[in-house]
């Protein structure tokens, strides 16, 4: 019986959220360039009244998603739909579902041509899109998914779980655990304060001002670029891309940078002593240390700075060059 009651409550909550767009401000019309394309803009609130938003999941395979944390308590959504004609515009839907536990789900849909009893003309994927701009409470946990669009998250404090196929992922000023995956989309992270786990196949990965317990980043073919990285455990790896890292090692921490075929360039700054070992199929350059000729199966080791709480540093490229330096 309680399960039934919960189901009913969930359905009611969902209906409440779905009803919101009907009373929201909407503006539709042509895009003004005379080609007959139409745009519809709608703004609405999502969530259960009186219930704090816990997790918000956004799944938009039809365009961009921009998520901005703010000091309010409600989720505000601005949805902009683009289509070549009114019939195609009616196939684009934004669904909002709010649950009694405080979670909110936003999904965009392109309905079947024949749905609703009317056979609508085929439409090219490139000519329809839905872009979402969402304001969320800072404490909300974010799950965001796009396909070819841009996925942007900023100013949130409870981390984010992000997926993209070919669109770029951009994260700014985020605290908490961040988890990001993309196939060909690039990923850029600025001012992330928490653990960060990032993987891309063909996309490039870029980090600027990242600090937290761990930074793990892997790319198959993409390059990895890190600036002002101060995470305690840093592990960067690539198969064929190059890796360029400028980091501030933490006492007792570790930095491991490995590429199979790409070049590896690591520059460390700060007062912490480091114990470095490096090897490469190509050339090894260890600034300030007399580095004997290297080979892919032989480690070269060097130590720098204070002995206490040294950070362990490992740099390696099986077929490329490796260089390491301490900078001021």
């Amino acid at each position, binding site marked *: 019986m309680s399960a039934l009651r919960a189901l009913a409550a969930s359905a009611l909550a969902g209906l409440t959220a779905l009803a919101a767009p009907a009373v929201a401000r909407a503006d539709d019309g042509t895009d003004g360039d005379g*080609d*007959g*394309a139409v745009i519809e803009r709608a703004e609405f609130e999502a969530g259960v009244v009186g219930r704090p938003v816990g997790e918000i999941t956004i*799944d938009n*395979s039809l365009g961009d998603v921009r998520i901005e944390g703010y000091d309010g308590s409600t989720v505000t959504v601005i949805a902009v739909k683009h289509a*070549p*004609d009114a019939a195609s515009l009616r196939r684009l839907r934004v669904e909002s579902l709010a649950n009694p536990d405080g979670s909110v789900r936003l999904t965009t849909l*392109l309905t*079947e*041509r024949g749905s609703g009893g009317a056979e609508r*003309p*085929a*439409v*090219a*994927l*490139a*000519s*329809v899109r839905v872009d979402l701009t969402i304001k969320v409470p800072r404490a909300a946990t974010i799950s965001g*998914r796009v*396909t*070819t669009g841009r996925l942007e998250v900023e100013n949130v404090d409870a981390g984010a779980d992000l*997926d993209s*196929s070919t669109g770029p992922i951009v994260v700014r000023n985020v605290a908490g655990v961040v988890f990001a*995956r993309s*196939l*060909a989309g690039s990923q850029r992270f600025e001012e992330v304060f928490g653990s960060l786990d990032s*993987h891309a*196949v*063909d996309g490039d990965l870029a980090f600027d001002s990242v600090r937290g317990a761990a930074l793990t980043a*892997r790319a*198959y073919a993409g390059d990895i670029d890190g600036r002002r990285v101060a995470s305690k455990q840093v*592990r960067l*790896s690539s*198969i064929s891309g190059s890796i360029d890292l400028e980091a501030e090692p933490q006492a007792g921490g570790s930095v491991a940078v*490995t590429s*199979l075929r790409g070049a590896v360039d690591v520059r460390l700054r700060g007062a912490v002593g480091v114990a470095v070992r490096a090897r490469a199929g190509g050339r090894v350059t260890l600034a300030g240390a007399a580095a004997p000729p290297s080979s892919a199966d032989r480690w070269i080791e060097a130590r720098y700075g204070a002995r206490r709480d040294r950070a362990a540093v490992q740099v390696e490229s099986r077929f490329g060059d490796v260089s390491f330096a301490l900078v001021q």
Partner: protein
Amino acid sequence: MNCRQLAEQVDAYLDGDLDEVGASACRGHLRTCAACRDLADQQTRLRAALAELPPAEPPAHLWAAIDARLGAAEIADSRRGALATGWSRLVAWLRPVAWPVAMVGSAGAIALAVVQLRGAAPSQPLALRAPVVAPAAAAPPVRLALRDALDERADLEREADGRFRQVVSELLPLARAEVATWAPRRAQAFAHDLERREQAVLVASPGHVRERAWHDLTSYLERVALGEQVAMGGGR
């Protein structure tokens, strides 16, 4: 693919006549070129409008237009290989026979015969061919085989699967070379973990869930290939 090539192939692409590689190249170019997207959009709208038109009687001047088109096609044939040239010769040989028949036969029947003898060039817009092939009175309305966004999205998912599959096939030998240096028990654990991740890909629904499973598999293989200490039986 550049803009000129796209312009040449956009009809065949919208008709669904291109093979997977050609269609993928067109889609890729359309993603990055706004001007060509506009062109494709215009073509799409034009085709949608044409699809709504009722079947039409072939106008009297149509044959002249077809003949001119055949002439242009022959010039194009002259630039093709031996097989295409031979085909053009056959058409040229048959045309004197076709003309007298055209004088006494019905215009629709002649057009049908010549178009069939000529062969259907994939790049010719269906909208121009169809009214000629179909006798006006009995013809059903011609439906253009325009691909819908939902079909294109399914194509994108297949392309993503294909790329992940390619990456896995490149990583597997590297990972196996590394595993060959491991103790048997650890190697066995690798085989088990690999199978578990492959199964996860197979059972995952298309889209983000499957891409997440692919990421888990490729990331695991990358770690093994690079000789990192991999926690067996774990993984997100």
